């Protein structure tokens, strides 16, 4: 029989199950980035002048910036001139019905488990699918529009609702915010837009699926969600990418505005290709996600399940501006093989009686590195601010790393901040205990990991939770010998 640690040491490749490429004819710009490329994208999309100007300002600003390297991540320098900044599935321009959608593309979505067809109506999820950079189809648009809800591609919103775009775009994540946000603002090609009017509770989950398909392209999507006073929406985001040897760049921006008494729940299951077990290929995921609780009693809740990407750099944050506003961050981040994740949140308390909750569950396996980085900031005058943070790390085997970087900045004496952190190893005793009850090691790990993540999984909408549980099991498949 083998030594005591071996059971946890051997890492076999749980194969990435979404790694097919689709044979879709696409319209791709050659690699390279300059003002002409920015203009090309804008022209290609038939954008109004204000948008082009915004892009150019962002691009010029980006040129003055340096790629940040403060995160606990190691990767070779990215050559931004080697990336293609635009790739669109060729055929459909204006899609009015599903018949016009490239059947290959529909098959892609079916493989992903997203059916754009009517059956989706039954499950009550409205889907906007973004492949490479272009939004392909938004289902349920009409039934939503009866309630005054706008749910469409970002490009469409630029044309149809320029006043909303002008008012809100960049209001939470300005292009000056960081290197990747600036890049995104310059070259973003599509994404989703969502506006819930005053007092409306969105009757269904809104969902966007992102998929990178073409080789050598970057994906830079932008999402903007606005919940007007007293509105409510639950938004889901799923991501996959094919297996490729080279790394691909993904730099998205998500902005959420929650007005007084409004609530936005944003759930992500991120499953970009993580690279193979030796660290070849995989998505570089540099994402800026931020929401603002603009009015009193506003609420924003981020829930994320991060299992994919070779590199993850992501800090979904909340600015608690309105009094009594609430920010939440629930996260599961799994890294296996050579994956690296530096993820966490920033809760900025500006209003009075604001409350934030952070629950982070990191799981590291293989030779991966998993870091939690979080900032809780209470400004002067944000009286009675409260934060509770809990950061747990679970290690599988002896070759992975878990790190916690909690930053706390308190400028008001009435603040109450609680921080709890634990690091544990998945116990061989726990596995043996399960084994002894007839549960094999693979299943035992799934059970233990799902149990460990319970608090976060419980925050996900039902069907998403089931998907996430499976994904956790798949991501850690073969992680034990």
């Amino acid at each position, binding site marked *: *029989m083998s030594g005591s640690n071996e059971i946890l040491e051997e890492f076999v490749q749980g194969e990435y199950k979404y790694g097919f490429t689709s044979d879709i004819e696409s319209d791709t710009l050659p690699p390279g980035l300059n003002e002409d490329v920015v203009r090309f994208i804008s022209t290609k999309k038939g954008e109004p002048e204000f948008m082009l100007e915004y892009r150019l300002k962002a691009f010029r600003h980006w040129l003055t910036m340096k790629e940040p390297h403060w995160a606990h991540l190691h990767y070779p320098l990215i050559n931004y001139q080697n990336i293609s900044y635009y790739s669109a599935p060729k055929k459909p321009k204006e899609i009015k019905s599903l018949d016009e959608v490239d059947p290959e593309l529909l098959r892609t979505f079916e493989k992903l488990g997203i059916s754009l067809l009517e059956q989706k109506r039954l499950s009550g999820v409205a889907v906007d699918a973004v492949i490479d950079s272009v939004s392909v189809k938004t289902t349920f648009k009409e039934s939503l529009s009866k309630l005054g809800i706008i749910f469409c591609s970002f490009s469409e919103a630029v044309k149809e609702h320029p006043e909303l775009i002008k008012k809100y775009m960049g209001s939470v994540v300005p292009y000056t915010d960081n290197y990747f946000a600036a890049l995104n603002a310059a070259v973003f090609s599509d994404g989703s837009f969502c506006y819930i009017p005053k007092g409306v509770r969105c009757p269904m989950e809104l969902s966007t699926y992102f998929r990178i398909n073409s080789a050598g392209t970057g994906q830079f999507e932008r999402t903007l969600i606005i919940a007007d006073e007293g509105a409510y929406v639950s938004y889901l985001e799923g991501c996959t990418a094919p297996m490729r040897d080279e790394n691909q760049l993904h730099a998205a921006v998500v902005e959420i505005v929650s007005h007084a008494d409004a609530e936005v729940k944003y759930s992500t299951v991120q499953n970009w290709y993580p690279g193979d077990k030796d660290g070849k290929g995989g998505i570089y995921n540099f994402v800026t996600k931020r929401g603002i609780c603009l009015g009193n009693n506003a609420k924003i809740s981020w829930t994320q399940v991060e299992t994919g990407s070779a590199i993850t750099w992501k800090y979904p944050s909340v600015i608690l501006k309105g009094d009594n506003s609430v920010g939440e961050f629930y996260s599961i981040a799994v890294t296996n093989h050579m994956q690296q994740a530096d993820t966490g949140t920033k809760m900025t308390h500006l209003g009075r009686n604001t409350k934030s909750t952070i629950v982070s569950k990191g799981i590291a396996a293989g030779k991966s590195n998993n870091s939690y980085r979080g900032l809780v900031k209470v400004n002067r005058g944000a009286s009675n601010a409260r934060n509770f943070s809990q950061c747990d790390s679970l290690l599988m085997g002896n070759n992975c790393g878990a790190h916690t970087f909690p930053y706390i900045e308190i400028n008001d004496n009435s603040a109450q901040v609680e921080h709890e952190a634990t690091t544990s190893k998945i116990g061989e*005793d726990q596995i043996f*205990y*399960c084994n002894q009850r007839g549960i094999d090691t693979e299943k035992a790990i799934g*059970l233990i990991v799902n*149990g460990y993540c319970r608090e976060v999984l419980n925050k996900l909408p039902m069907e998403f939770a089931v998907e996430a549980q499976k994904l956790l099991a798949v991501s850690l498949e073969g992680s034990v010998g």
Partner: protein
Amino acid sequence: MLEIKDLKVSVEGKQILKGLNLTVKKGEVHAIMGPNGSGKSTLASVIAGKEDYTVDGGSITFNGKDMLELSPDERAKEGMFLAFQYPVEIPGVSTINFLKTAISEIRQYRGLPPMEAKDFLKVLKEKQKVVEIEANLTGRSVNEGFSGGEKKRNEIFQMAMLEPSLAILDETDSGLDIDALRIVATGVNKLRTKENAFVVITHYQRLLEYIVPDFVHVLYQGRIVKSGTRELALELEGKGYDWIKKEFSELAV
């Protein structure tokens, strides 16, 4: 049912079991006693298949099958159950969900269809009664925050649910109050049939007043040095282990 022959086991180079023999037939209850550190838990763990131990020689067969060839979960699926001396906690996994998973795995192994939810609930209620365990305990995460006694009782509850043909109870009585001891023992007695067998590891003859063993063995320095009936347990209670140790060291010379 269970046949252990000349079993030699070491851990980290240190020999713990030094040629142990034990035969358990169905319908029987065997008690194993012996001083601390004599190798009782080691024996239980090795039978169940814990990886930390190296089997240097001997054999373990269960219903004619070579257990040393099987993984721990396969041994369990073959009908072997170990009530742990120190049950572990599994946060976030309810005992109910845990048992559901276990039962479906075991049934699948035996080529049986999955148990229907309503049947499962029926059995659950029944067995909760048998071991008088509170429903709220089974709804909670496996052993998380349980008191020592509650953990032990949960082991017996799981045993009742899984209906093993051989159950090894490793000091299930220690940490139990007098009432709980009686309840657990009564539970075990209710679960006794002609078809199954129990190996009860204990330090106290009190448990054996409730669960009456057919045989009592004394494990000392990695071997079974004395076997007898109930009376042996009484004798040990009165005299301690010194006389055994003495007899054994004379024997060893």
